[in-house]
Protein backbone atom coordinates (compact mmCIF):
# COMPACT_ATOMS: atom_id res chain seq x y z
CA UNK A 1 0.00 0.00 0.00
CA UNK A 2 2.74 2.42 1.06
CA UNK A 3 4.89 1.68 -1.98
CA UNK A 4 1.83 1.68 -4.24
CA UNK A 5 1.26 5.28 -3.18
CA UNK A 6 4.72 6.36 -4.27
CA UNK A 7 4.38 4.51 -7.55
CA UNK A 8 1.02 6.12 -8.31
CA UNK A 9 1.51 9.63 -6.97
CA UNK A 10 5.19 10.05 -6.06
CA UNK A 11 6.13 11.75 -9.29
CA UNK A 12 3.37 14.38 -8.99
CA UNK A 13 4.16 14.98 -5.32
CA UNK A 14 7.85 15.48 -6.03
CA UNK A 15 7.06 17.70 -9.03
CA UNK A 16 4.83 19.84 -6.85
CA UNK A 17 7.47 20.03 -4.13
CA UNK A 18 10.06 21.14 -6.66
CA UNK A 19 7.82 23.97 -7.71
CA UNK A 20 7.12 24.91 -4.11
CA UNK A 21 10.73 24.66 -2.87
CA UNK A 22 12.39 26.03 -5.98
CA UNK A 23 15.25 23.51 -5.89
CA UNK A 24 15.75 19.74 -6.09
CA UNK A 25 17.73 19.33 -2.88
CA UNK A 26 15.08 20.83 -0.60
CA UNK A 27 12.34 19.08 -2.54
CA UNK A 28 14.00 15.70 -1.92
CA UNK A 29 14.26 16.45 1.81
CA UNK A 30 10.59 17.40 2.01
CA UNK A 31 9.69 14.35 -0.10
CA UNK A 32 11.32 12.04 2.43
CA UNK A 33 9.70 13.89 5.33
CA UNK A 34 6.38 13.41 3.55
CA UNK A 35 7.10 9.68 3.24
CA UNK A 36 7.79 9.43 6.99
CA UNK A 37 4.52 11.16 7.87
CA UNK A 38 2.60 9.05 5.39
CA UNK A 39 4.06 5.87 6.88
CA UNK A 40 3.16 7.01 10.40
CA UNK A 41 -0.43 7.84 9.50
CA UNK A 42 -1.22 5.16 6.96
CA UNK A 43 -2.18 2.54 9.54
CA UNK A 44 -4.87 4.86 10.95
CA UNK A 45 -6.42 5.20 7.47
CA UNK A 46 -7.20 1.75 6.10
CA UNK A 47 -9.36 3.23 3.32
CA UNK A 48 -8.27 6.30 1.43
CA UNK A 49 -11.03 7.91 -0.59
CA UNK A 50 -8.75 10.49 -2.16
CA UNK A 51 -5.15 9.32 -1.83
CA UNK A 52 -3.80 12.08 -4.06
CA UNK A 53 -5.49 14.82 -2.00
CA UNK A 54 -4.30 13.24 1.23
CA UNK A 55 -0.71 12.96 0.01
CA UNK A 56 -0.63 16.48 -1.42
CA UNK A 57 -1.97 17.88 1.86
CA UNK A 58 0.72 16.08 3.86
CA UNK A 59 3.42 17.14 1.39
CA UNK A 60 2.28 20.77 1.55
CA UNK A 61 2.35 20.76 5.37
CA UNK A 62 5.84 19.23 5.28
CA UNK A 63 6.87 21.99 2.89
CA UNK A 64 5.54 24.66 5.26
CA UNK A 65 7.45 23.11 8.20
CA UNK A 66 10.60 22.85 6.11
CA UNK A 67 10.29 26.45 4.97
CA UNK A 68 9.86 27.54 8.58
CA UNK A 69 13.01 25.69 9.60
CA UNK A 70 14.93 27.06 6.62
CA UNK A 71 14.02 30.64 7.43
CA UNK A 72 15.22 30.07 11.00
CA UNK A 73 18.49 28.58 9.75
CA UNK A 74 19.02 31.28 7.18
CA UNK A 75 19.57 33.78 9.97
CA UNK A 76 22.42 31.63 11.29
CA UNK A 77 24.06 30.82 7.95
CA UNK A 78 27.08 32.96 7.21
CA UNK A 79 28.36 31.55 3.95
CA UNK A 80 26.52 30.06 0.96
CA UNK A 81 26.50 26.33 0.34
CA UNK A 82 29.34 25.43 -2.03
CA UNK A 83 28.64 21.71 -2.31
CA UNK A 84 29.46 20.17 -5.65
CA UNK A 85 26.50 19.94 -7.97
CA UNK A 86 25.49 16.36 -8.71
CA UNK A 87 24.06 15.09 -11.98
CA UNK A 88 20.53 15.51 -10.65
CA UNK A 89 21.16 19.15 -9.85
CA UNK A 90 22.68 19.68 -13.26
CA UNK A 91 19.64 18.07 -14.83
CA UNK A 92 17.47 20.32 -12.72
CA UNK A 93 19.43 23.32 -13.93
CA UNK A 94 18.73 22.28 -17.51
CA UNK A 95 15.10 21.77 -16.64
CA UNK A 96 15.03 25.20 -15.02
CA UNK A 97 16.08 26.63 -18.34
CA UNK A 98 12.65 25.87 -19.67
CA UNK A 99 10.82 29.14 -20.02
CA UNK A 100 7.65 27.94 -18.39
CA UNK A 101 9.43 26.74 -15.26
CA UNK A 102 11.37 29.98 -15.07
CA UNK A 103 8.12 31.88 -15.44
CA UNK A 104 6.46 29.83 -12.68
CA UNK A 105 9.47 30.42 -10.41
CA UNK A 106 9.05 34.12 -11.02
CA UNK A 107 5.46 34.16 -9.75
CA UNK A 108 4.72 35.56 -6.29
CA UNK A 109 4.71 32.75 -3.71
CA UNK A 110 0.95 32.64 -2.97
CA UNK A 111 0.25 32.43 -6.69
CA UNK A 112 2.97 29.81 -7.23
CA UNK A 113 1.51 27.68 -4.43
CA UNK A 114 -1.87 27.65 -6.15
CA UNK A 115 -0.25 26.66 -9.46
CA UNK A 116 1.78 23.89 -7.79
CA UNK A 117 -1.15 22.44 -5.85
CA UNK A 118 -3.74 22.72 -8.61
CA UNK A 119 -1.79 21.86 -11.73
CA UNK A 120 1.20 19.80 -10.57
CA UNK A 121 -0.40 18.35 -7.45
CA UNK A 122 -3.63 17.69 -9.31
CA UNK A 123 -5.99 19.06 -6.64
CA UNK A 124 -9.34 20.55 -7.56
CA UNK A 125 -9.95 24.24 -6.88
CA UNK A 126 -11.96 23.35 -3.75
CA UNK A 127 -9.27 21.01 -2.44
CA UNK A 128 -6.61 23.62 -3.12
CA UNK A 129 -8.62 26.19 -1.18
CA UNK A 130 -9.00 23.76 1.73
CA UNK A 131 -5.30 22.93 1.85
CA UNK A 132 -4.26 26.58 1.68
CA UNK A 133 -6.98 27.66 4.09
CA UNK A 134 -8.36 30.32 1.75
CA UNK A 135 -11.64 30.88 -0.12
CA UNK A 136 -12.27 29.20 -3.47
CA UNK A 137 -12.74 32.67 -4.98
CA UNK A 138 -9.23 33.62 -3.86
CA UNK A 139 -7.84 30.47 -5.45
CA UNK A 140 -9.62 31.33 -8.69
CA UNK A 141 -8.34 34.89 -8.74
CA UNK A 142 -4.77 33.71 -8.03
CA UNK A 143 -5.04 31.12 -10.75
CA UNK A 144 -6.30 33.71 -13.22
CA UNK A 145 -3.51 36.03 -12.27
CA UNK A 146 -0.99 33.18 -12.74
CA UNK A 147 -2.36 32.30 -16.18
CA UNK A 148 -2.29 35.96 -17.26
CA UNK A 149 1.30 36.38 -16.09
CA UNK A 150 2.51 33.10 -17.59
CA UNK A 151 0.78 33.88 -20.84
CA UNK A 152 2.33 37.34 -21.05
CA UNK A 153 5.79 35.95 -20.23
CA UNK A 154 5.54 33.16 -22.79
CA UNK A 155 4.19 35.31 -25.62
Amino acid sequence: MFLDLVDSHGSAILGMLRRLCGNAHDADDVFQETAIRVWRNLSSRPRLRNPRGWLVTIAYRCFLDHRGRRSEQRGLEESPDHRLRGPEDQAEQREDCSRLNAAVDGLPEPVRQVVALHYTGGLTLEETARVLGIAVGTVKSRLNSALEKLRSVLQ
Partner: protein
Amino acid sequence: MRCDEFLRSSRTGNVWRRLLARLHAARCRRCAQLLQRVAAMEHELSQSPPLSQSQRRLWEQAMEIEREAPARSPVRRPLLAAVAATLLVGIAVAIWQWGEGSRPAEGPVAENEQRQAEPAIRESPLAQSRDSEDLAEIRAGLDRLSLRLDHLSRKAALLNARRQVAELIDRYGKL
Protein backbone atom coordinates in the same frame (compact mmCIF):
# COMPACT_ATOMS: atom_id res chain seq x y z
CA MET B 1 -18.73 37.66 -24.03
CA ARG B 2 -15.82 40.05 -24.48
CA CYS B 3 -12.34 38.79 -25.39
CA ASP B 4 -10.81 40.16 -22.17
CA GLU B 5 -13.24 38.04 -20.11
CA PHE B 6 -12.57 34.91 -22.10
CA LEU B 7 -9.58 33.42 -20.26
CA ARG B 8 -11.04 34.00 -16.80
CA SER B 9 -14.39 32.52 -17.77
CA SER B 10 -13.00 29.48 -19.56
CA ARG B 11 -10.65 28.44 -16.74
CA THR B 12 -12.34 29.36 -13.47
CA GLY B 13 -15.88 30.33 -14.39
CA ASN B 14 -19.02 28.40 -13.52
CA VAL B 15 -20.62 25.96 -15.95
CA TRP B 16 -22.62 28.69 -17.68
CA ARG B 17 -19.58 30.98 -18.11
CA ARG B 18 -17.54 28.08 -19.45
CA LEU B 19 -20.19 27.27 -21.99
CA LEU B 20 -20.29 30.91 -23.09
CA ALA B 21 -16.50 30.90 -23.34
CA ARG B 22 -16.62 27.81 -25.54
CA LEU B 23 -19.19 29.41 -27.81
CA HIS B 24 -17.07 32.56 -27.95
CA ALA B 25 -13.97 30.53 -28.89
CA ALA B 26 -15.90 28.93 -31.71
CA ARG B 27 -16.48 32.41 -33.19
CA CYS B 28 -13.27 34.25 -32.23
CA ARG B 29 -10.07 32.92 -33.80
CA ARG B 30 -7.77 34.90 -31.49
CA CYS B 31 -9.42 33.50 -28.34
CA ALA B 32 -9.39 29.97 -29.80
CA GLN B 33 -5.62 30.27 -30.26
CA LEU B 34 -5.28 31.64 -26.74
CA LEU B 35 -7.25 28.69 -25.42
CA GLN B 36 -4.94 26.27 -27.22
CA ARG B 37 -1.85 27.97 -25.82
CA VAL B 38 -3.22 28.00 -22.28
CA ALA B 39 -4.28 24.35 -22.53
CA ALA B 40 -0.75 23.42 -23.67
CA MET B 41 0.68 25.44 -20.80
CA GLU B 42 -1.58 23.72 -18.31
CA HIS B 43 -0.64 20.34 -19.72
CA GLU B 44 3.04 21.14 -19.28
CA LEU B 45 2.46 22.37 -15.73
CA SER B 46 0.73 19.12 -14.83
CA GLN B 47 3.62 17.01 -16.12
CA SER B 48 6.29 15.76 -13.77
CA PRO B 49 9.21 13.50 -14.65
CA PRO B 50 8.98 9.89 -13.39
CA LEU B 51 10.73 9.14 -10.13
CA SER B 52 14.31 7.99 -10.37
CA GLN B 53 15.50 4.98 -8.38
CA SER B 54 17.23 7.25 -5.85
CA GLN B 55 14.04 9.25 -5.37
CA ARG B 56 11.97 6.12 -4.86
CA ARG B 57 14.64 4.96 -2.42
CA LEU B 58 13.95 8.10 -0.32
CA TRP B 59 10.43 6.79 0.18
CA GLU B 60 11.64 3.31 1.09
CA GLN B 61 14.20 4.73 3.51
CA ALA B 62 11.42 6.54 5.34
CA MET B 63 9.78 3.17 5.96
CA GLU B 64 13.04 1.78 7.34
CA ILE B 65 13.63 4.85 9.53
CA GLU B 66 10.18 4.52 11.04
CA ARG B 67 10.52 0.77 11.55
CA GLU B 68 13.67 1.34 13.57
CA ALA B 69 12.22 4.23 15.57
CA PRO B 70 9.78 2.23 17.79
CA ALA B 71 12.70 0.10 19.00
CA ARG B 72 14.18 3.16 20.66
CA SER B 73 11.07 4.68 22.13
CA PRO B 74 10.04 1.95 24.64
CA VAL B 75 13.39 2.48 26.39
CA ARG B 76 12.77 6.17 26.78
CA ARG B 77 9.49 6.00 28.69
CA PRO B 78 10.51 3.60 31.47
CA LEU B 79 13.75 5.54 31.77
CA LEU B 80 11.81 8.74 32.36
CA ALA B 81 9.55 6.97 34.84
CA ALA B 82 12.60 5.61 36.68
CA VAL B 83 14.19 9.08 36.84
CA ALA B 84 10.93 10.58 38.13
CA ALA B 85 10.57 7.79 40.73
CA THR B 86 14.19 8.25 41.89
CA LEU B 87 13.64 11.98 42.25
CA LEU B 88 10.48 11.45 44.27
CA VAL B 89 12.19 8.89 46.51
CA GLY B 90 15.08 11.31 47.00
CA ILE B 91 12.75 14.10 48.02
CA ALA B 92 10.86 11.76 50.35
CA VAL B 93 14.11 10.60 52.03
CA ALA B 94 15.28 14.22 52.40
CA ILE B 95 11.99 15.19 54.06
CA TRP B 96 12.17 12.16 56.32
CA GLN B 97 15.74 12.95 57.40
CA TRP B 98 14.82 16.56 58.03
CA GLY B 99 11.97 15.33 60.21
CA GLU B 100 14.32 12.99 62.09
CA GLY B 101 16.89 15.78 62.59
CA SER B 102 14.32 18.04 64.18
CA ARG B 103 13.45 15.32 66.74
CA PRO B 104 15.27 15.47 70.13
CA ALA B 105 18.31 13.13 70.06
CA GLU B 106 18.52 10.13 72.38
CA GLY B 107 21.42 9.08 74.68
CA PRO B 108 23.13 10.44 77.85
CA VAL B 109 24.43 13.66 76.28
CA ALA B 110 21.09 14.29 74.81
CA GLU B 111 19.44 13.54 78.15
CA ASN B 112 21.63 16.19 79.82
CA GLU B 113 20.82 18.61 77.07
CA GLN B 114 17.20 17.70 77.48
CA ARG B 115 17.38 18.26 81.22
CA GLN B 116 18.98 21.65 80.63
CA ALA B 117 16.35 22.46 78.13
CA GLU B 118 13.53 21.10 80.23
CA PRO B 119 12.64 24.31 81.98
CA ALA B 120 12.31 26.07 78.66
CA ILE B 121 10.12 23.27 77.30
CA ARG B 122 8.06 23.23 80.42
CA GLU B 123 7.67 26.93 80.06
CA SER B 124 6.19 26.46 76.58
CA PRO B 125 3.97 23.38 76.18
CA LEU B 126 2.74 25.04 72.99
CA ALA B 127 6.15 24.42 71.32
CA GLN B 128 5.95 20.72 72.19
CA SER B 129 2.58 20.31 70.59
CA ARG B 130 3.77 22.26 67.53
CA ASP B 131 6.66 19.78 67.05
CA SER B 132 4.37 16.79 67.19
CA GLU B 133 1.99 18.49 64.74
CA ASP B 134 4.92 19.08 62.35
CA LEU B 135 5.94 15.46 62.64
CA ALA B 136 2.44 14.25 61.94
CA GLU B 137 2.25 16.55 58.95
CA ILE B 138 5.55 15.21 57.57
CA ARG B 139 4.38 11.64 58.03
CA ALA B 140 1.14 12.41 56.24
CA GLY B 141 3.14 14.04 53.43
CA LEU B 142 5.31 10.96 53.15
CA ASP B 143 2.25 8.74 52.98
CA ARG B 144 0.85 10.90 50.19
CA LEU B 145 4.17 10.76 48.34
CA SER B 146 4.36 6.99 48.56
CA LEU B 147 0.76 6.73 47.31
CA ARG B 148 1.63 9.05 44.42
CA LEU B 149 4.69 6.94 43.61
CA ASP B 150 2.57 3.79 43.48
CA HIS B 151 0.08 5.56 41.25
CA LEU B 152 2.83 6.79 38.89
CA SER B 153 4.45 3.39 38.58
CA ARG B 154 1.04 1.80 37.81
CA LYS B 155 0.43 4.50 35.19
CA ALA B 156 3.86 3.91 33.59
CA ALA B 157 3.19 0.18 33.42
CA LEU B 158 -0.23 0.83 31.85
CA LEU B 159 1.26 3.20 29.25
CA ASN B 160 3.85 0.62 28.29
CA ALA B 161 1.20 -2.05 27.95
CA ARG B 162 -0.94 0.24 25.76
CA ARG B 163 2.02 1.06 23.55
CA GLN B 164 2.88 -2.57 23.11
CA VAL B 165 -0.71 -3.38 22.20
CA ALA B 166 -0.78 -0.52 19.65
CA GLU B 167 2.47 -1.79 18.13
CA LEU B 168 1.10 -5.31 17.88
CA ILE B 169 -2.08 -4.02 16.23
CA ASP B 170 0.03 -1.96 13.83
CA ARG B 171 2.24 -4.91 13.02
CA TYR B 172 -0.35 -7.62 12.64
CA GLY B 173 -3.23 -5.43 11.47
CA LYS B 174 -1.41 -4.92 8.19
CA LEU B 175 -0.92 -8.59 7.47
